[in-house]
């Protein structure tokens, strides 16, 4: 492996990118860590362009001006919707914006490792490469949970569960690069919670006005499973007047809607592994991704798995950057001879 200081001499900026359905993050070797909401939007017309003052907007800013924009969330289910022109364009814009945020020096080479949901790797790897390749010198694509595991040094006897917006990815690490059998993806993830919550709220408060973006914000702010000792109330307009609504039960029900498939797939993944090592894996389950911020989810999973013996479930410290950090570490550790041939 080429020493890191020798690589630095090559004037290379290493970046790790976590390309997510809801949020995308970049971590670079110059110490910069940034994230944006995975949205891009273009002004609908000349007037809109005058109002927003930019040819393209990203993330929260795009959401804020969404009424003036053709807005696109291109990584639905973690997959680039290629063929739909705006989606591919949006991914490219997001990548370009992320790389700008990393502030590369002029003429500096960029070597990137991009973490994507495991399912994307199966049929969309070329699309992902195409979208990223325009803005970097060389790149490698890896599955997101693997990037998390590598970054956290969880190389052996560990189960990584990346709870994203579009997908939940499971990845068993056993001292080698995970094969397809070591990975599973399910689609009852963050977006599914949003849908459930939206439906529950419509059912309970048919006269109140809210949209899916508001519902997503409620989820991100209040999500929990099991019980908590606090009231959850939000202000929603009814006939134009702001009214406080109790949404605690709906939040809990929506968040808990992903638990059955989460528990089932976790037990399946462990059960299919070599029985001699099952106990070790059960004691090294790590939750990553935005879903790991759901209060009580690690305890719930730990409790649900108790009937199969003792187990330990923990959450990564920084779910927003765990994937990007791991991807960056991969990029930095990668021997330069590998970069050269790609």
């Amino acid at each position, binding site marked *: *492996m080429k020493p890191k200081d020798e690589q630095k001499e090559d004037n290379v900026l290493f970046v790790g990118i976590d390309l997510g359905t809801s949020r995308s993050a970049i971590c670079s070797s110059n110490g910069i860590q940034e994230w944006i909401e995975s949205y891009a939007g273009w002004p609908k017309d000349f007037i809109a362009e005058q109002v927003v003052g930019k040819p393209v907007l990203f993330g929260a800013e795009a959401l804020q001006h969404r009424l003036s924009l053709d807005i696109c969330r291109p990584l639905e289910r973690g*997959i*680039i*919707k*290629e*063929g*739909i022109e705006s989606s591919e364009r949006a991914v490219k814009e997001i990548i370009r914006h992320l790389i700008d945020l990393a502030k590369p020096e002029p003429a500096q080479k960029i070597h990137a*490792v991009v973490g994507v949901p495991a399912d994307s790797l*199966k*049929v*969309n*790897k*070329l*699309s992902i*490469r195409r979208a990223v390749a325009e803005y970097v010198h060389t790149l*490698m*694509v*890896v599955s997101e949970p693997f990037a998390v595991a*590598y970054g956290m040094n969880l*190389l*052996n006897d560990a189960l990584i569960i990346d709870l994203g917006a579009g997908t939940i990815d499971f990845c068993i690490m056993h*001292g*080698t*690069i995970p094969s*397809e*059998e070591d990975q*599973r*993806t*399910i689609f009852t993830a963050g977006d599914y919670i949003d849908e459930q919550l939206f439906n529950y709220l419509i059912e309970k408060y048919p006269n109140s006005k809210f949209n899916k973006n508001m519902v997503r914000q409620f989820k991100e702010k209040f999500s929990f499973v099991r019980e908590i000792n606090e009231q959850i109330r939000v202000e929603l307009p009814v006939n134009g007047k702001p009214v406080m609504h109790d949404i605690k039960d709906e939040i809990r029900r929506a968040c808990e809607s992903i638990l059955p498939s989460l528990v089932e797939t976790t037990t399946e993944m462990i059960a299919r592994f070599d029985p001699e090592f099952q106990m070790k894996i059960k004691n090294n389950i790590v939750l990553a991704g935005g879903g790991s911020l759901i209060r009580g989810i690690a305890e719930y999973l730990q409790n649900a798995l108790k009937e199969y013996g003792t187990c330990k479930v923990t959450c990564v410290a920084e779910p927003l950057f765990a994937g990007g950090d791991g991807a960056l570490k*991969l990029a930095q*550790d*990668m*021997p330069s001879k*590998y970069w050269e*041939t*790609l």
Partner: protein
Amino acid sequence: MFHGVMISLFTAKKEFKIRQDMLRGVYEENLSILGRGRPALSRRRSFLLKGILLSAVFSALAILMLDQHTGSLFVPAKPTAPISTIPVRLPPASVSAKLTPELDKYPLLPAVSVTPEDAVNASEFSAIMNSRNVSLMRMLGLKIKTIMIDAGHGGSSSGTTGKMGTKEKDITLDIAKKLKAHLIKSDLHHVLMTREDDSTVPLLDRVTLVREAKADLFISIHLNYLPKKNTNIIETYYFGSSDDKKTLKLAEQENAGSEYGLSDFREVVEMLGKTMKLQESKEFAESIQALLFLNSKKHDEDLQNHGVKRAPFVVLLGVDVPSVLVEVSCLSNPEEERRLNSESHRENIARYLATGIFDYLNKGARTYEAKR
């Protein structure tokens, strides 16, 4: 102290080795994405099982063919007479009347003759088939209510693998999902899939699913693999015997993992006598092949039409409704593998398959109108 240092050195060395292996693994995977990796894996082979299975299919077919001449074993000759003398009072064209959903969205090209293949003569109803323009299904006014889409392979059965590492099971699943979305838009049919994720579904279970769902139409989606030829072909199969070695080889590959026992064959082979299935499967296959090929040809001038064929695929044998197995593309062709990795190409294939299905369903409309 010394012992402790040695242990930690050993651990560090082991971890370094693991990391190196992982990094090389990542590199090799990315090389394979670019089509520069190790040679593609060939189809999984379980010779013993396939050998037994294929022998069983041929034995069963041989017995059946013999039976058609001697009129003894499985299918009684009696039903022929009553069915052939059914008064031709055609029911309302329920199949046809509603079947023009959003067809303008789907590419319709003039009908062409597909590759010639043997006439369907595997049943005692062949006289009806050859003399009438109206199929039994439409004569009896049977409707297509439920369509079952089968994404080939899945889970532990990857099917073929391209040089870039693209797996047949992933592509077929994606196309199947897209096809389902197209068919659902018409709002006329109940559309089901034998698998909706990357799970292992044995062939026998797929057949059971079709039966339990009471599906009226079955389409199984696969990818071809022709390692010795740098071509891209499309071909569509319905169940029947074949003398073509390549077809038999393909059947052998696609039948891998079947859990049929020999004892099951007597029962399932009886289904071969069902003229309706053969008639309709043939028509269905012709529609699929014609529309899929003609539309796909727009994107690939070198695409070859290998036509409609008959082959002893187990998954088609067990299903007793109109059923086809379509090889929508060829994963051994590097250029085609690249295309299959694009969402738009898979979307196109799904759209052309939907067009083929609608074309088949609308044949009823045309036949009925002509009759009137």
